[in-house]
């Protein structure tokens, strides 16, 4: 991550400083702040394109201004933080299972949308159990079946929420 031109001349040291700032901006925190600022700017443009009336913009303009000022203020703080070049601060390492479970959660949502509630729920619980360390497959299957039956059919028959299912 360090710049190869470091310590060769003043000019290259400046290049290295820019490189450090950019590497810090590349971390997750900076990405989040930039996302929030970008969202506000896009939102302002969207609102403005819908209606240019003052009443329509009177809350959004102060909010966008505040997000810009505060966001940039935090961003400057992130850049100034005495961190390693990777910009990871002292945050705990991300458990590899977290992104996996996030993906499974997204698939669960798609399953609810395109499959049926009982099948999607069974699959989600089963695969989550495996990801989270359940080694006994039969326990995973049994637990998934029981909890699916309780939650999905409880929702359908006890609270009368119409949910699409294969069974029942």
């Amino acid at each position, binding site marked *: 991550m360090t710049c190869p031109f470091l310590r060769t001349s003043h000019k290259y040291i400046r290049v290295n400083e820019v490189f450090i700032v950019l590497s810090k901006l590349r971390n997750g925190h900076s990405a989040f702040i930039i996302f929030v600022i970008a*969202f506000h700017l896009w939102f302002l443009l969207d609102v403005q394109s819908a209606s240019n009336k003052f009443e329509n913009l009177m809350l959004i303009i102060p909010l966008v201004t505040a997000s810009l000022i505060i966001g940039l203020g935090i961003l400057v703080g992130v850049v100034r933080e005495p961190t390693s070049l990777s910009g990871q601060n002292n945050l705990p390492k991300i458990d590899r299972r977290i992104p996996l479970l996030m993906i499974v959660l997204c698939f669960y949502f798609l399953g609810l949308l395109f499959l049926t509630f009982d099948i999607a729920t069974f699959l989600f619980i089963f695969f989550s*159990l495996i990801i989270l360390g359940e080694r006994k497959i039969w326990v995973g299957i049994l637990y998934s079946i029981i909890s699916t039956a309780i939650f999905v059919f409880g929702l359908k028959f006890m609270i009368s929420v119409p949910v699409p299912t294969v069974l029942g």
Partner: protein
Amino acid sequence: MIDFSPFEAAISLLYADIHVWLVIVPGLLLGLVFGAIPGLSISICMAIFLPITLYMDFVPAILFLTAIFTGGGFGCAIPAILMNIPGTSASVATTFDGYPMAKRGDHNKALGIALASSVFGAGLSYAILLIFIGAISNFVLKLGPTEMFIVALWGISLIAVLQDNFFLRGLLAGVFGLSLGMIGISNLGVLRGTFGSVYLFDGIPAIPALIGMFAASELFNLMRSDYLVVDEEKRKMNLGQIVIGMKSAFYHPLIMVRGGLTGTIIGAIPGVGSSVANLISYALTKRKYNKTETFGRGDERGVIASESANSSSEGGSMATLLALGIPGGGGTAIMLAAFAAHNVTGGPRFLSQNTDIVYAIIFGNFVQVGLLALIGMGFIFVASSIVKVPLRYLIPTVMVLALLGSYAHTGSMVGPATVTVFSILGWVMRRYNYPVAATVIGILLADLVEGELLRSYQLAGGRLFQYIMDRPITMILLSLFMLSLCIPAIRKFSEIRAKA
């Protein structure tokens, strides 16, 4: 003040009808169950059981619904303490110290504290309602849109003020929440930020967003350990600890009384209610007692402040409903529907002509509060067994509950989609120390903030600044709001001076 002739009539009304008492226990249990299941809020429970009230007389019907309200007011604290999931927005502040207490193994005590504070808060609010119902309604009538606007903004900014080291992040999270809450059709009928999707016309659904940000995002972080409470010895269910917790709440009577008063006053403001009351009470308590910096790390006073305030806001919202006929939130809106179904219209005339019924409702609620202490104790004894469940089973189960609960709430796939997106967003925000509560409160109150600002502008005829200057209540509230924003800066400055 109390009128004694209807006072006696109310007592005879309650003793003449056995049905009045038969509905209270089922109502409390339903409220506890629905409040304790994330996604299934008090409003859902009341809406589901509203048709049953059509077969009851007016007083039992209202007492049944208020029993659900009272049970749910405490029920939402159970997932807040045990899983860091506020059952409703009313228990957001309960998570700040309740959950750290549970992680430390003090879940029994935390639940006992929450129960005692809820019982005390609800009881106090009904006592205030009994004595000052007229005065409360007069005060609420004086609040205009500018005051409501400032109170709502205050509620959002409070989370930032509570963030000791990350004030700016708290503010950005609040601003972000407000903007997200403005997605959808505006008060002027303009479509904003919907990407042309019909599912976003009504905006981002607040309850699924709340579930995603609080529940699912925290569940991702829980993967590191095997159980919610790591120490096996501390996982035991202990009725004695629950009782000790209940007792220890009474070691802080001032916090409970202040929380109760705060909740009653703020609960009486339509649209704001318990979502803001618990935060303001928590902030006031933290500011007064946080010399040892224990708040946010499992300080029982935080739980007392939040729970006494959110439970007492029930009495406040009932004051507005009974005296003005204005519902303060989802629960009282359903109660208003029950009023209409029984051909009763709440408001000043109802209050003056049916004072005996109003008093009967208040007395019935005193009994409910007493019963909640007993039923609640048994309920939390069962509910606290959740700490014994290995997290590999708990995490997917709660996630399924969150997604299905959000589906039940919205009646469409918008709910599960919102939970999924906001769980990932919430996890990112938590990782970089952004308070998700600020964003959630922003989403919840955005509609109110924008609506009140627009009404203020219209009432002022375009001269908003002049209008604000002419309203002393607005000026006082604005000054207090600005002062609360300056507090972190003042604290930081004094810390730097002390170090120098």
